[in-house]
Structures are given as structure tokens and as C-alpha cells.
């Protein structure tokens, strides 16, 4: 039987990997994020942050007061659309 339990689907982070990170001392939410990369993919942690927080508490880590810092944009946006928002007065120096 495979014990591969996926916690962060976007970045393929497994339960085992999260447990290993916590055991190595990355025992607060922001450190676990950096050590495993959970929450940095397509959904930006919308699906997995609460799960990881719960895991952290159950494994004796630091109980998070806040979720990981949310990183804009809320949804992925094409560069061309963003370029269209550039203010006219912003010159491009050579």
C-alpha cells in the first residue's frame, strides 16, 4: 500500500514531507511553507493552508496566529492584461 498522502496538490507536497520538515525544526507555518514549498503554486494555499496549520498543531509545532501571508494576485492574471494597466506617465528610461 502506498502511504503517499498529498496535502498541497499544486506543488505536490506530501504528508511525509511536511512531517519531515516539522521534525527538522521548521515548526512554524512560514518556515514549513519555505521548507516544503506548500502554498506557493496555482491556488496559493487556498486549499492546503488550514490542513497544514492543523498538522502543525497536532505535531507539537507553533500554533499559527495568522495564515501564510497571502500573495496577490487573487487569481492568476496574464502579463498582457497587467501591462495595459501601466500609467501613461511612467516613462521607460533607456
Amino acid at each position: 500500500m502506498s502511504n503517499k498522502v498529498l496535502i498541497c496538490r499544486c506543488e505536490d507536497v506530501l504528508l511525509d514531507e511536511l512531517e519531515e520538515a516539522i521534525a527538522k525544526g521548521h515548526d512554524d507555518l512560514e518556515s514549513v511553507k519555505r521548507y516544503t514549498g506548500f502554498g506557493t503554486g496555482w491556488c496559493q494555499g487556498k486549499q492546503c493552508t488550514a490542513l497544514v496549520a492543523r498538522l502543525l498543531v497536532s505535531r507539537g509545532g507553533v500554533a499559527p496566529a495568522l495564515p501564510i501571508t497571502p500573495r496577490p494576485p487573487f487569481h492568476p492574471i496574464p502579463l498582457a492584461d497587467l501591462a495595459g494597466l501601466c500609467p501613461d506617465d511612467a516613462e521607460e528610461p533607456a
Partner: protein
Amino acid sequence: MSARPLPEDARTVVVGAGIMGLSIAYNLARFGAERVLVLDGGYLCGGASGRNGGGVRAQWSSETNIRLMRRSIALCDEFATKMRINVWFRRSGYLFLARSDERARQLEASCALQNEHGLSTRILDPTGIKKLVPQLDVSRVVAASHNPDDGVVFPWPFVWGYAREAQRLGVELHTHTRVLDLETEGERITGVVTDRGRVRAERVICAAGAWSPELTRKVGVELPSRPHRHEICSTEPLKPFLEPFVGDLGTGLYFSQSMRGEIVGGISNEHVPEGLDQASSLRFLALYARSLTRAMPILGGVRVLRQWSGCYDLTPDGNPLVGPVDEVPNLYLASGFMGHGFMMAPIMGELYARHLLFGEEPELFERWNLRRYAQGNLLSETMILG
């Protein structure tokens, strides 16, 4: 990591567990120094060292930077095997684009100096640029300089590697431990006061990045440097297609493709709030997206996934602040590294330790000392990005 009690005293207290503080601590221990304590108010990778683009290059305009960065790149090359951690180092070159004749002349002068120092940098015309990166729009580009030996790393494991090896050699590291004050007797520091207790200190190294002016102010030392928010973002992952890290010194636009396939990049933006601010702005995304899609129109349909920011520690002359402070002789600076402190850290940590322990590199530590501001001996560097 923070549950262990703090020691009562230390020979050397390093304030800041960013790449600079950790590299210095690791090298001090490697050369036999004892009782080295590193303190950080946050978690590992929380400062600029966990927020940067990972660009590592020897293309600079000053002899000192070329010489040092060349050695830093060599250290990156052996980091994975020596420190037993994968830092995803990729030597895929740096390409600097010039969109004006004046900028092109600057790149040519720097290229000549780099060649004198053994770098393989070459000046490319638009046809040569197209050969290297076919997706670039070169219609506004006059020339470029390219060094195939520059590269990129993934910053996080670099920090963990130093932290782990430093601790293995006996360095004590305490995260979530903020230095609130520095105690003095006469002109010397005698200890640090933290939110977890006091530690007596024989010397203090300030490696607090953009927070350094705040720290030294506690003993009345005003640094000429100031924090400046710098933003960055990454896109959805793409199949690998982009070899070099591309930079434009005019706009400060830079971008590279990470080993995960994302396009990671940023741009200069003067209009940010003063001080220590790590927020993100839509204005940045718009500025970056416009310059990037002009430089490489094919990226227009690619989506931005995440943006974040960190603080540069900017000095007026673009050069760092290292070595002791005249007014407080057992306070040492390792700050003011602008937007290139990550790539400087491998070699700076080694030279710093050799300087403290064996008095080596006196010329460099004199040149980059804070006292140059009082003496009016300011330096220069034209190849600053961001």
C-alpha cells in the same frame, strides 16, 4: 528552534540570520572561532535572503565587485557538495541589454575591465542577441553584454545550508529572538538585550540587512543607508526555453526562468513608501508587465501567479558597509549590500572571518568602511539592478 535557553555570554553575537550573518558565522566557526551566537527576530528566510531573485553574476563595473563576485560564483559551484544541500545552481549566463548608445558604451567599458580580470564577457549586436534568446524583441536594443559563467540559485536552500553547517561546527542559532537593545559601557558594547533575555557580548556584528540603521541607532550610530522596498513576482511554470538571466540597466527590468519553469523578475520602482515596508502593489505589476512584454512580447499570455517584496539596504554610493565602527569599536557592520547581497555573501562571509581572525584583506575592509562617508571617499558602481 527557539525553545533552547540563550547562552549567558558569547565571544561574537551576529544580529541577523540572513545569508550574510549565517555566512559570516559559518566561516568564523570553520576557521576555529568559538562561542559564536546568531540571533534573528523572525524565521529563517524571512528577510531579503528569502525574498530575492537568486541572481549571481560577475558582470560589474568596478574592479572590486568583479574580483569578489568571481570568487563567490566559484563558491556557489562547490556549495552543493560541500554543504550537502541542493541549491539548484544553474550557470546559464547573464545578458545585459542596452537601449541607448550611452548605455552600450558603459557596457563596453565594463566588459573590457571584466576581460582583464579573466571573465569571458562579450558584447553582442542585435543579431547575436537573437541567436541567444530568439524570443527577445531587439528592435529597440543597441547592444548587450553576455557572460556565460554568471548564473542563478534557489535562495532558500542556500540559507538552510549555511544554517545547518554553521550549527554543526558549533555556532548557536536562535530564531524568533529579537534584539531590542545594545548595552554599552563607555564606547564599547557589553551585551545585547533580546525579547528572550540578555546575553553578554565581546563583539557584535550587525548583519540585519535593511534593519541595520534601526539597530545601530540604539548606540547612537547613524548609517547613511536606508531601506527601499523592492518588488518581484513569478509566473506560472513554462517548459524551459530561456537560457540567460536578462537585465536592462535603464529600466531596472530583470527576469529569468527558474528551475521550476517560472519566469521570476522585477523592475526599478522609485515610487514606493519610505522605510521598512514589505507590501505588494499593482503599480509594480503593471510597470513590470509593460517592460517585460515589450522586451519579450511572446510572454503576453503568460499568467502571473504570485508577487511579493523585500527590502534593499541602499547606500548612497552603491557599495556596502563592512568592518568596525570608529565610535563603537566592538560593533562591526556587514550591511548596505543593496540588491546584490545574496551573491556577495559566500565570498564576504569568508573574507569577513579571515579579516576578523587573521587581519587579512585590510585594503578591502578600509575601502568599504563606514568612515569613507566622513572622509568623503565615496565609491561608484554603474551596474546596479533594481
